[in-house]
């Protein structure tokens, strides 16, 4: 029981985490390198800011999505929450509500959707796929109903300021994303709550026997996930200056992809923020780079699939070589 018995074993864990992050980081560097060599514009400040400002929305959703994924589930309903939040935000601010109260209401609405997800999963014991697919239908339909299928432009001129350039010329939503990424990372890695999420995802029975309030933990991650999706919906609406019942309807698969690319598994118990951020950036750089280098649209779809497989395949090989 001396130090020495602990030291050597330490080696095992750290490289395991960072090896995957390294592969992902390397992959991002390769993607960036390829596009930079193809187009001088790719690494221009303006374009990098573009990548970041576009990635912020899917990034926020992914920061939410990482929580249910670690806990062993996932949340398809974010694709309904994002447009619902945008529409709601537009309706509320247009009705004269201030930006902050409107934001609070929208986040609360997101929280309610998450709570419903949580209850369906923990109380009604409906599996996360069906539960969140069901709420996706309901919430997505609601977004269209309350907007009557129409686009709702903002009448409050201050809305655009939410996503305008801020500190160092970087858009506010990017800072928001960075800040929340740090917060979520700290929560996951350095709080008892975060460790409980990993425990629940790693083995729910073990967590239950260890006295963890499994149902509360599970419900809470869906609440947080939906709230982050609602926030992403507000950001997207303020980028578009319009509340739209169809804006953001692909965010569920995109965010799940980013999080899994970042090392999470559908079986739960693994994953984290650094990998997720890398996953978001890889997908963002890829889609921007292909548009910038004028890859025809259908080939973009094909290339995205191939790159996704390559990225995940590589980190698997790296893992097996250990």
């Amino acid at each position, binding site marked *: *029981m001396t130090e020495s*018995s*602990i030291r050597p*074993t*330490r080696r*095992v*864990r750290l490289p*395991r985490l960072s090896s995957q992050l390294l592969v992902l980081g390397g992959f991002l560097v390769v993607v960036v390198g390829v596009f930079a060599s193809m187009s001088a514009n790719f690494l221009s400040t303006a374009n990098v800011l573009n990548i970041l400002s576009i990635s912020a929305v899917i990034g926020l959703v992914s920061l939410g999505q990482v929580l249910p994924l670690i806990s062993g589930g996932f949340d398809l309903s974010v694709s309904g929450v994002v447009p619902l939040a945008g529409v709601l935000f537009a309706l509320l601010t247009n009705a004269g509500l201030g930006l902050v109260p409107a934001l609070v209401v929208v986040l609360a609405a997101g929280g309610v959707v998450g709570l419903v997800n949580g209850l369906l999963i923990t109380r009604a014991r409906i599996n996360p796929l069906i539960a969140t697919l069901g709420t996706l239908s309901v919430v997505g339909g609601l977004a269209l109903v309350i907007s009557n299928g129409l686009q709702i432009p903002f009448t409050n001129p201050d809305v655009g300021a939410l996503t305008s350039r801020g500190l160092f010329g970087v858009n506010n939503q990017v800072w928001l994303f960075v800040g929340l990424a740090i917060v979520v990372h700290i929560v996951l*890695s*350095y*709080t*008892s*709550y975060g*460790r*409980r999420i*990993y*425990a629940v995802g*790693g*083995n729910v*029975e*073990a*967590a*239950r*026997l*260890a*006295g*963890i*309030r499994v149902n509360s933990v599970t419900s809470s991650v869906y609440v947080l996930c939906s709230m982050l999706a609602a926030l992403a919906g507000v950001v997207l609406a303020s980028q578009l200056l319009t509340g739209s019942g169809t804006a953001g309807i692909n965010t569920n698969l995109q965010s799940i992809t980013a999080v899994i690319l970042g090392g999470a598994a559908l079986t739960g*118990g*693994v994953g984290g923020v650094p990998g997720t951020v890398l996953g978001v950036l890889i997908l963002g750089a890829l889609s921007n780079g292909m548009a910038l280098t004028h890859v025809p649209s259908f080939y973009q779809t094909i290339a995205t699939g191939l790159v996704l497989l390559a990225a995940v395949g590589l980190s698997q090989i790296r893992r097996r070589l250990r």
Partner: protein
Amino acid sequence: MDPTPVLSVDGVTKRYGENVVLDGITFSLAAGERTALLGENGAGKSTLAKIIAGSTRPDDGGIAVDGRGVRFTVPRDALAAGVSFIPQELVYVPALTVAENISLGAPPSRFGFTSPSAMIRAARKYADIAGFDLPLDTPMADISLAQRQLVEIAKAVTRQARILILDEPTAALESEDSARLHELLGRLSASGVAVILISHRLEEVFATCDTVHVLRNGALVRSSRTADLTPSQAIADMLGHEQSSTAKVDRCPSDAPPRLEVRGLRRTQAPILDDVDLVVREGEIVGLYGLRGSGADTLAETLGGLHPDAVGRIAVAGATMNRLRNPRQSWRAGIAYVPADRKSQGLVLIDSIRRNFTLPDLRRVSRAGWILRRRERAVAQNLYTRVRVRARSIDQTVGELSGGNQQKVLVGNRLLADAPVLVLHEPSRGVDVGAREEIHDILRGLADGGTAQLVVTSDIEEAVLLCDRLLIVHRGRIVDDIAFPTRADQARALEAAGGIQ
């Protein structure tokens, strides 16, 4: 005796369907008392333990802690009341490290914040208290079954509970670790912790426990002080009748041809195998005994096809290979391998007994890929009676069986194929004394029919009772070879396993 018992169980009853699993169980436990729950497989011991620990709810009856009635709906409630529980089927988080598993649910934290180093420190403290040397920073998935058991014990210690329930903690432990555990239990009980120990190893029960409660068919048939009871009386209570003699059958030295021959088997990754030579002859039962990390497990797993990186010469019933690439290859070569961990490696818990029985040898019950239902039922029913599974029927889901009965299903399904070589890894893990005897009888019967058997066990007594020859493994080498071992050879075996020549 203490006037208010720390735990009293009053008329606890539990039914699954029409099956009465526990029938009005009543007993109490004083602070510092060490009690054993004994009973056949399926008698209801684990169910009772789970009820006390709040992970299963009784249909009837109540529990009081410190004389106050409690109603646990989740394990959390029981933990809060001071009850700590290690279930029979270990439940842990494979992806998390040992340290994280030890502090699972209650990581050391200040204002809700914690850190990996704080968890390591806390885990080291409790591992030290328990006296275990654990690789704290290794993921749980990467350590051996025995080590996982130790982690679970350390985890239970962190709760600083006043009632500690251990469901067959020693089933997979070798003697040294068992001894450490009992020493730990002694210290805890001295400090006032009440201990409930469930075990099929009667010697340890009689050596360490103050009182004994015997369950039979869900009813409490005996509560007494250990001092007032003999092991054979306890067995009679468990079985409901006297047990027939367990005397060792005398067998002749074998000069039959080798069925399994291993030459120069090497594995460089830890745990290493260092030039292992081994022969098992037709009709011979060879035991393999070694301490944790010695390579005994690894050798068995290699023969099961789980370590393709172990290279040497392996000859099975004539065919020679230089390695076994996967379990399928080893199976096809004629080795039936009973894995150590029935839950993760052995059984499809959500499937029925029948399906589990026939899974490894579907060909026997099918024609042209078509399952012959009637033949399958007959084969399964036959095995069911042969290994004496106690269940409602061959159609019961394996996950609903008691631990020992699951083990019988596992052993049974590997017997189906009549493979020339049988490698058994902890074959009687968690089975009761009667059933262990039955399994031993079956194995001896198979040996008489010519099957060559290699039995890896952490139970030295089993090794000595069952085997015609006992090989001792230390640091990846076979260091001793004891023919026709008797109880007298136990000390020699233990010394050799510990590296003392």
